[in-house]
């Protein structure tokens, strides 16, 4: 059921209810979301909630419209992006994703602090080798040397990582469908299992994304 945005008696805009983004749109907490349906709802609600429609309204109504439309925009921004949507739902389900987040990574990069990051076990060997190659590349660059064989090696590793990255997204989409089915008919343990699987997929995906970025930086500099 959609949250109440308007008064049922007079049709006036109401203060934003503290609901989650799915409820704001009147959607169930499901992940395989129809993008065009979401956009249609977003446009329809925008027409009713945007402050432009309240330029001449009394102050209270204007404030509510501002609050409601900012929540609408925040909700839309989160739900339309598949990764943000998944992360958001996982947070609603009590998962703390901060350790793997981009923000935490950037903070660690800038401050030079070591970020707690677990290498996915199946990537251990590949990552170890890649890091060695990157180290070598940085040293060579400092000396002004050029080793085409090394660049090719790194390029291959990068391609393999990118393939894994894409595959993980497909895997995530597979988990969405399982999750959505479990929302309708699954048991609590079912849902928790799918939830944890999604956390794992996202963590691996973030890890690979950071790795690819490191590769790009090493190659550019």
């Amino acid at each position: 059921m959609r949250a109440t945005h308007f008064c049922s008696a007079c049709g006036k805009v109401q203060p934003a209810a503290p609901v989650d983004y799915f409820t704001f749109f009147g959607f169930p907490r499901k992940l395989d979301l129809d993008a065009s349906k979401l956009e249609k709802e977003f446009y329809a609600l925008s027409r009713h909630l945007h402050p432009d429609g309240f330029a001449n309204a009394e102050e209270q109504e204007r404030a509510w419209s501002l609050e409601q439309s900012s929540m609408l925009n925040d909700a839309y921004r989160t739900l339309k992006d598949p990764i943000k949507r998944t992360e958001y739902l996982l947070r609603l389900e009590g998962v703390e994703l901060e350790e793997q987040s981009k923000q935490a990574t950037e903070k660690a990069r800038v401050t030079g602090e070591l970020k707690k990051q677990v290498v996915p076990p199946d990537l251990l060997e590949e990552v170890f080798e890649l890091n060695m190659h990157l180290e070598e590349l940085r040293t060579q660059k400092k000396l002004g040397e050029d080793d085409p064989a090394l660049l090719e090696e790194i390029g291959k590793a990068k391609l393999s990582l990118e393939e894994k990255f894409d595959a993980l997204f497909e895997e995530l989409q597979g988990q969405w469908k399982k999750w959505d089915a479990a929302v309708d008919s699954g048991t609590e343990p079912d849902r928790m299992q799918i939830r944890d699987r999604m956390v794992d997929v996202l963590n691996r995906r973030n890890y690979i994304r950071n790795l690819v970025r490191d590769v790009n930086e090493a190659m550019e500099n």
Partner: protein
Amino acid sequence: MASDHIVGIDLGTTNSLVAFMQGDSPAVIPGEDGLNLVPSVVALDEKNQIIVGNAARKYLIETPERSVYSAKRLMGRGVEDIREELKMFPFQLADDMAAGEVLRIKIGERTYTPPEISALVLRQLKRNAERFFGGPVTKAVITVPAYFNDAQRQATKDAGRIAGLDVLRLVNEPTAASLAYGLDQRKNGIVAVYDLGGGTFDISILKLHDGIFEVVATNGDTHLGGDDIDNLLIAIALDDIRGDLGLDVRRSGESVARIRRSVIEAKIALSSLPSTTLDVELPGGKRYQREVTREMFERLIQPVIDRTVGPTKQALKDAGLKPSQIDEVVLVGGSTRIPKVRELVQGLFGRTPHTDLNPDEVVALGAAVQANILGGGSDVTKEMLLLDVTPLSLGIEVAGGVTDKIILRNSTIPASATQYYTTQVEGQTNVAIHVLQGERELARDCRSLARFDLKGVPPMPAGMPRIEVKFLIDANGILHVSAREQRSGKEAEIDVQPSYGLTDEQVENMLLESFDYAEEDFRQRQVIEARREAETITAALAKGKNNPAWQALTSDERHNIAGLEESLVAVKDGDDYQQIRNAIDALNQGTMRLAELMMDTAVTTALKGKAMDQTDFEEGTAAGHPVAKAEFE
């Protein structure tokens, strides 16, 4: 209702315009001189009267130290921000500026902040609109470059308030242009607006969908435009003059202003001609002349216009679009008249840009459309809705001098974000929050918007308090921040005070001062109008004396009228409005019978079958009281 006109204003670096929705389409309101563009130039004349617009332009050359242009480049900026800028512009900062104060520019003996200078331009536009509507105009939509930061937006809003305008909305210039374009074309699709004006560059990418104008990405440079092109040419001319003529005129405001004028003329000419000549009169009867070919000009400006490429590519990347996915590219801003710029845009997008719209007017027209929407809309605008974005990411400084971004750039506005912070030291009762704007990772590389203290945090062990900070960017792109310590419920509401912004009190004072000036202006205008009225009346009377009706008056009546006329002539060139007014009214009263007789003559003549043009009346005087109160406006 006349008092309900909401106007759309394009407050430009070089020119400003005011427009309104006339029936189904927006229209620009011309000034008294009949021109649509009001140059954003402010000057003080010999009598210390403020002159704005076309009339002020001559002072740029005659008394450069008493005039200012391109003040928009200074809006919302600090002294250190504009040090580079000041080298290129003849502005003089006030001598008595304190550290951290909003900068003030000298115009003659007076000093003005950039918002006050902009307010003078706005007030001229307001006056033009009031003259046009014959009633007060108090509400406006004002456009700003999409890439303006919070401080620049706030400064623009302040300028509106100082000018006595209730600024209902700040709209991004390229977005406004898209509204005018969309109203005109009524097509769905992806549109890129490339806006290169006098001082700023914006690129916006929008999705047009059944009346919804959704900005997907925007980027730009608030210090890139026609001014930079002019400055390149000026630098060359100054070098030439020093080398060839042995004259160093860099410090001569008048010469630089003359060069600037000649350079702008040349730049404009080169959009249609293969070559033109710079021609400048210099002190001591010397003269600088130089041929400039288009080829040379294009080579010279390439680095400037190339600076639009990075932002354009970034905007496309942020939108997740390839150039081939753009359905239409709309050009806005006077600098897009330069063929080389058009060529660059064509190369970037691989398509011929849409140039049907007048690049000087389209932003103001779009602002008028938005004004109409805010006023409740009309048949043609009722389905239209603008969804704009914030151009820059917003964040808070966290430990290690790092920016913690909490609202990312290109987020649809209004947008909000909530973050939780805690204390670092046992018993800490104050938490300083530093608000930043920009894309860089380190706080020192971002623009500082404001610092505020959350006071009265209950003493707790480090890390215990839970401080909720809520950021809200409103539909104007202006940030509001509130913070609350959740365990104690202690709340602090903060309106972001830009690091180089005016306080509310300062804005109020400026508004009051502007009222004083306004009254002065108003009295002057009254006098001028009364004078014109007096001239019309005496001219009509001169004609009346040739009418047979004049002879039908008694000699006493004729004598009386002559006396009243003499008194009017005696006072009409004075500065006392009331005196002129009284003399006009007395003469009006005294010539009442003459007017009646003239009417009778006219009627009799007409009845005799004579055509009106064969009588010695002219149309206007025959229609009524020959010395009726003249209508101006």
